[in-house]
């Protein structure tokens, strides 16, 4: 089963926008090849994490090995590589794509091309993939296959005459897809006599087996019992098991060039398995590693705090468990005067942040609060040192800063014409620079350069609301640029509330400072003494609100001689103070800060 000649192997991935039917098509292909009986099929076999299934997105790469008896009389091995479907995982996507020779580009025949599709398809083109366009949902009354075919040619610039027209839902023309894979995609190349070079595509933690590594063998053979070496760090492991996903795990003796499969080598944590690394034979190592390896670097950071301080240890345990399976996410303990003990966490992007946060609350039952997300700034000190800065609290005094650079992105936004004006306004409000604006039918495609800083600050929500949910958005990192950035501190009775400080462009500082002050004024209940809320850059106040003192709080009656009751009420009041944060003479309920932070997202 592993001695399949290269000419009979096809490795492919599927590129599609959310909801355009990627997982349904994958299910149909699995079914058509008889890998699973109808009874064994649960919907969307590939998306096996609850969260993935719910959001219709893939976080971890997965593969399925299928056998297909083609019309030419030969039986082919088809390896489907399911890639993470979001830009936050752009690097992971690029490694998954590097494991294949071609892609199916699935486009909803009634919706057309979306921004996310574009970014992924360009990555596939960069990976030298042969791309087979597939028009899905052609059975729907709203389907316009001709229009969408033209759109693919116009926008993406690849021929779409031979686009395969299917309905993944009804199973229409699945055969056509399988034939196109066999006839149109090139077979992999490789030499099984050369030293082993296998691409580490992904890894995850299995509670029974330990770390499982997903690999694509490029050169040589990967055998059970072999001592393998990770070329990025020189770590050496014994391969206990080699296998393929069919789609269940099936052990095999070895994997030859062009094959995809998994290994299990008594590795403790996924942190030791870097996506994009090259595995080689320790006894007969390859001279060079495969191209394109990059260590994963968090792009967005935020503080995560338990709402209930008693949950701190539980949060620590939960983070370490998540990290077992997701080495791209980083965390370190931090303390906030306003929020107590928590962690500073780094993510590949906003979606990644949201997924981790949701898993913590769902799988670990933690009630969490997140501080405003921050990007990673590059801070150059006057003494010439450069440091990366992702926590506003760490920003030094202005006098030692020579300059600060912030990360930019290139964003592609597709939106129906009627909402274009609002979207363009939003982009320019966020310091966006228009690079391109083209029309595809009645949809506009705007390409903007934007500071990432402006995108992490409620950009998605605003985009959704100004386009009534019709805009689609995708981005790629696009380098660093010097910028006029300031740290805005929020002060309560002249004392800074660390959890609320943030870094922003000077032009946005005042309005954002004002909106946080106004929000806090609404959220903080009136107290014995008046409360001054200020936003400040250094010592300069840029916004101010005052919460007046409460006008009355007295119990009319004194309960006769029942003083014990009054005393117990006082004791209870003192107990309640544990959830308060003292700012000089006033105490602010922690819940007010939590609410202010929640409103940010």
């Amino acid at each position, binding site marked *: 089963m592993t001695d399949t000649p290269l000419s009979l192997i096809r490795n492919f991935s599927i590129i599609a926008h959310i909801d355009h039917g990627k997982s349904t098509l994958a299910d149909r292909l699995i079914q058509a090849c008889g890998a699973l009986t109808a009874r064994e099929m649960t919907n969307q076999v590939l998306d096996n994490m609850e969260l993935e299934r719910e959001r219709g997105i893939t976080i971890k790469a997965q593969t399925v090995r299928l056998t297909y008896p083609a019309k030419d009389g030969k039986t082919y091995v088809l390896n489907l590589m399911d890639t993470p479907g979001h830009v936050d995982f752009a690097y992971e996507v690029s490694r998954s794509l590097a494991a294949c020779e071609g892609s199916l580009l699935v486009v909803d025949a009634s919706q057309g091309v979306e921004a996310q599709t574009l970014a992924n398809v360009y990555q596939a083109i960069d990976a030298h993939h042969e791309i087979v366009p597939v028009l899905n949902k052609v059975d729907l009354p709203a389907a316009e296959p001709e229009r969408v075919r033209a759109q693919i040619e116009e926008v993406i610039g690849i021929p779409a005459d031979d686009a395969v027209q299917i309905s993944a839902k009804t199973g229409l023309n699945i055969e056509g897809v399988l034939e196109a894979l066999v006839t149109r995609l090139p077979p992999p190349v490789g030499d099984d006599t050369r030293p082993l070079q296998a691409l580490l595509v992904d890894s995850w933690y299995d509670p029974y087996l330990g770390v499982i590594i997903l690999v694509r063998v490029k050169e040589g053979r990967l055998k059970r019992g072999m001592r393998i070496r990770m070329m990025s760090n020189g770590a050496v492991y014994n391969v206990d098991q080699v296998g393929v996903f069919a789609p269940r795990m099936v052990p095999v003796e070895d994997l030859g060039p062009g094959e995809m499969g998994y290994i299990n080598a008594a590795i403790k944590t996924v942190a030791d398995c870097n996506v994009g690394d090259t595995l080689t034979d320790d006894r007969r190592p390859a001279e060079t590693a495969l191209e394109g390896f990059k260590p994963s670097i968090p792009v967005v950071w935020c503080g995560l705090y338990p709402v209930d301080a008693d949950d701190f240890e539980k949060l620590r345990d939960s983070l370490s468990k998540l990290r077992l399976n997701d080495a791209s996410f980083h965390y370190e303990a931090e303390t906030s005067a306003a929020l107590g003990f928590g962690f500073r966490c780094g993510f590949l992007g906003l979606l990644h942040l949201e997924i981790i946060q949701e898993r913590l609350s769902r799988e670990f039952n933690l009630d969490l609060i997140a501080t405003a997300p921050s990007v990673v700034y590059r801070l150059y000190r006057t003494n010439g040192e450069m440091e990366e800065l992702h926590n506003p609290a760490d920003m030094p005094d202005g006098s030692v800063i020579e300059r600060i650079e912030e990360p930019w992105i290139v964003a592609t936004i597709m939106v129906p014409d009627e909402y274009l004006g609002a979207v363009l306004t939003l982009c320019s409000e966020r310091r966006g620079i228009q690079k391109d604006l083209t029309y595809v039918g009645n949809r506009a495609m705007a390409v903007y350069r934007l500071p990432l800083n402006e995108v992490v600050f409620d950009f998605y929500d605003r985009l959704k609301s100004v386009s009534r949910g019709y805009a689609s958005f995708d981005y790629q990192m696009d380098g660093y640029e010097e910028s006029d950035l300031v740290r805005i501190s929020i002060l309560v009775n002249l004392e800074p509330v660390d959890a609320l400080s943030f870094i922003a462009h000077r032009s946005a500082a005042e309005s954002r400072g004002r909106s946080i002050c106004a929000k806090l004024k609404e959220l903080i209940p009136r107290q014995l003494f008046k409360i001054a809320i200020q936003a400040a850059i250094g010592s300069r106040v840029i916004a101010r609100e005052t919460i007046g003192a409460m006008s009355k*709080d*007295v119990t009319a009656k004194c309960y*006769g001689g029942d003083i014990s009751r009054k005393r117990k009420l*006082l004791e209870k009041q003192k107990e309640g103070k544990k959830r308060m944060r003292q700012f000089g003479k006033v105490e602010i309920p922690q819940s007010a800060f939590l609410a202010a932070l929640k409103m940010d997202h």
Partner: protein
Amino acid sequence: MQSDVQIPANGGAPLALYVHWPFCLAKCPYCDFNSHVRDAIPQARFAAALRRELAHEAARLTADGPRRLGSIFFGGGTPSLMAPETVASLITDARSLFATAPDLEITLEANPTSVEIGRLRAFRDAGINRVSLGIQSLDDKALHLLGRQHSAGQAIAALETARALFDRISFDLIYARPDQSPAAWRAELNQALVLVSDHLSLYQLTIEPGTRFEGLHRQGLLVLPDEEAGALMYEETATVAATHGLAAYEVSNYARPGAESRHNLTYWRYDDYLGIGPGAHGRMTLADGLHATRRHRAPEPWAERVERTGSGLMQDDILTSRDRAREMLLMGLRLTEGVPEARFARRTGMPMTEALDPVILAAALEEGYLVRDQAPGGTILRATNAGRLRLEALLGALVL
């Protein structure tokens, strides 16, 4: 004499005696006091039980020497439902068990229904020399809302009757009622001040847990004036009362100078008081410390306990220095006169500075919520009008 500072000094103030009569004709929807409605009130049984408990407790209190009694207060419930003979025998008992001041103040709470008012003369003959009438409002619609059994006309007639019988009369009004505007309250208060002799209790309506009003309030069927309107009415109440010569001497109590309720001052000044009857509380200085006592709340089980053991005592704790400090501040800052620091230190065993958060104290002095007066006997800490208006929040932050 031992020099044990742990024993709180009583300060030599006369003892106050509180007698709780737990029965009412009907339960008012705002009231969370220990009151109960019975088809027939077991008068004889409760009279005997009260007398027995009084004798029992007096013996305990006077074990180390005689105590001087300064006031008796019959509260409830509705003590005007007591048989006047019961009141008479309890007063006689008290006079024989304690040394009494010549001007012993003996107050009875009474409702202005015709039945109860018909017995005022008998109560006077029993020894009562001060009545406190539960008038609550001079508006019939409001009286209906408050679940009262009398009309405004009956209330005014009751005051006339009482005036002919007693030198010292007080009555209660409840304001900041649902739908009551500050103007309507001003009018009602002016009407009441014409009728007043020398003392008045003016309570803002509060929603207490477990009452019928609480249920209605939760459902949104009972809406009270907001914080601003409540504050306005409170401030105006003091102003209007002052123009009639009545000074606010406590958060909700107003009197001509010298006409203050001596009995209630005992609670607020944190002096000793003996409470008997169902649910009554007491603070009593004994050889081993200041005791906080509570009697069984339910009338019949209380009586049973008294019949069996002589006392309905349910709880009897010796208060720590911290407890005493908290209680004395909670009560004392309700009074316009404030808390003398020397008396505080004697009663609690700690200097006042140890009982207060210094940051809040400084801020409250600066804000004008508190003042420190230098009097001949030493420094007095007192809450200003502005401070008393926000007293719960102030105490919550200030008292350690």
